[in-house]
């Protein structure tokens, strides 16, 4: 069964056609990577899925339900969760409190504390728990936000450039984490520029270019596609 289905999603910013009749279907249980040059409209597509932006036309279906008219928070409660491109942690609050806020709607009291401790260890942030989140390194902020996103136990996790600013080792660890979450039944849609990461985790890849779905297939098919190489090269020359 398809978990997420985007039908002919159109979004304009003034004269800019940011997403152009985007069709995309995500099967439950897959890890799907969304790639494409800068400005292709990837992050905008996320915001359309989440209800942060509303499409000019088209529909978003989640678990068989048309959620196009739902507000963002209501979509989250249906089982969506996101880590944004720019880390969106609660900068002035402690790392522990960040996680508490994410976890408190599903756990209470001692169980909540135990759950926070567990997640802190999972994220490798146990010794930073009392620190103000704004003082974390960029990579740690990414992890913290991923932690907040997964603490909602979503059925679909959206990750916008989860490994940006991470070392190759950290990137690999993030990939392993994504695979572990996926093994537990989480469907993942990740935007990523780091091809090592895409190769590590992606079961299917979609290329977005100038707001349109440009190509789709396995990572090997995508890498072998000369047209895809051309759009990246074209951008490199620009």
């Amino acid at each position, binding site marked *: 069964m398809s978990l997420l289905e985007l039908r002919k999603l159109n979004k304009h910013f003034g004269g800019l056609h940011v997403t152009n009749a985007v069709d995309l279907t995500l099967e439950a249980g897959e890890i799907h990577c969304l790639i494409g040059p800068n400005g292709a409209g990837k992050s905008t597509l996320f915001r359309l899925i989440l209800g942060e932006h509303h499409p000019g036309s088209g529909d978003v279906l989640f678990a068989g339900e048309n959620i196009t008219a739902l507000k963002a928070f209501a979509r*989250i409660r249906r089982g969506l969760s996101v880590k944004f491109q720019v880390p969106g942690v609660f900068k*002035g609050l402690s790392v522990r409190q960040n996680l508490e806020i994410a976890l408190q709607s599903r756990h209470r009291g001692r169980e909540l504390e135990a759950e926070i401790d567990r997640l802190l260890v999972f994220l490798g942030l146990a010794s930073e728990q009392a620190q103000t989140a704004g003082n974390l390194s960029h990579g740690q902020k990414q992890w913290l936000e991923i932690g907040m996103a997964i603490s909602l136990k979503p059925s679909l996790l959206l990750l916008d450039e989860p490994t940006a600013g991470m070392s190759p080792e950290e990137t690999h660890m993030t990939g392993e984490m994504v695979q572990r979450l996926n093994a537990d039944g989480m469907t993942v849609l990740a935007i990523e520029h780091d091809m090592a990461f895409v190769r590590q985790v992606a079961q299917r890849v979609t290329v977005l270019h100038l707001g349109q779905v440009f190509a789709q297939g396995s990572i090997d098919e995508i890498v072998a596609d000369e047209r895809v190489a051309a759009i990246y090269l074209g951008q490199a020359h620009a």
Partner: protein
Amino acid sequence: MTGFVSFFRRLEGPQTVGRGPAFWSLFAVVMMIAVAYPLFSDGYTVGNTVYFFVWVFIALSLCLIWGYGGSLSFGQTAFFGIAGYGYGVLTLNFGSAYGFTLVALVASVAIAAFFAALLGYFMFFGRIAGVFLGIVTLAVTLMLERFMAQTAGPEWHIGSARLNGFNGMSAMPPLTIPWPGEPIVLFADVGLYYFVLGLLVFVYLALRILMNSSFGNVIVAIRENPERAEMLGYDVRKYQLITFVIGAVLAGMSGVLYTAWGQYITPSSMGMTAAALPLIWVAVGGRSDLTSTVVGTLVVLAAFQALTIYGSQYALVFMGVLLVLTVLIAPNGLVLGTMNWLGRLAARITQRAG
């Protein structure tokens, strides 16, 4: 039982400064002094202290909405005025028998809360935020002041209560507690002192519990990053609206108590100066902490009054200077800065001793 215990555990938490035996011992000492104080003072001075206490509620409302919630509102002064006038109109019409003044207190605060719900609904669900929220709330406050100022004519009355334009309303009865034999009239001295003190302590402790609860967590989360809060499944606008209404209740309490204290209210209590002063108390004290707000408000009010002896225009200039100094030296508030510094000092001393 465990629910009961965890409820009171929330008196302490990451959202409020002050924890452990040292803090609560100090709190107990301050309470004892506050309770004993009227025994060692005269009625006038006690009445003057009540006047200071009265303003703490509106300061706490700003602390909640602005300090914790991150939305700068000038509307608190409007809710202060609405509740104050509400109390005047109700008690001038229905008198003070059978405990009606207490009913009027609750009803006036409820009217202010209703207005806040209405205004808040249009603002938050209309996605007005940041500086625009400040502008809209200030406009509403000043509009109310203008409106009340032009109600001098005899046609402006509600029941038997004349609104009296710029001169305002007066001679409403003080708060009166029904008592077998003779009702207890809370004139602006010892009687009203204990009533307001009790209310203040109750509100302070209740807000501590509220801010350290999961509700308080969401409020500060919205201040830090509303988008992230929404992306955790919280209906941000609903939380903002509820906070705004709670804030209006607190501001309304100030309004009623002020009116009952002096037995008068005028449109200027909703004017520009009236709207700006609470902001200064709260900013100077430390807007993101309840205790700092209470202490800061009382200290600044006392200093302001002391300076007024030399002329109120100097006192206002002093307020401005104080605000600028705060912004430069301790942007989070002078009292809060001092308390945090003392906390660090204490930690260092115990560390060295241990």
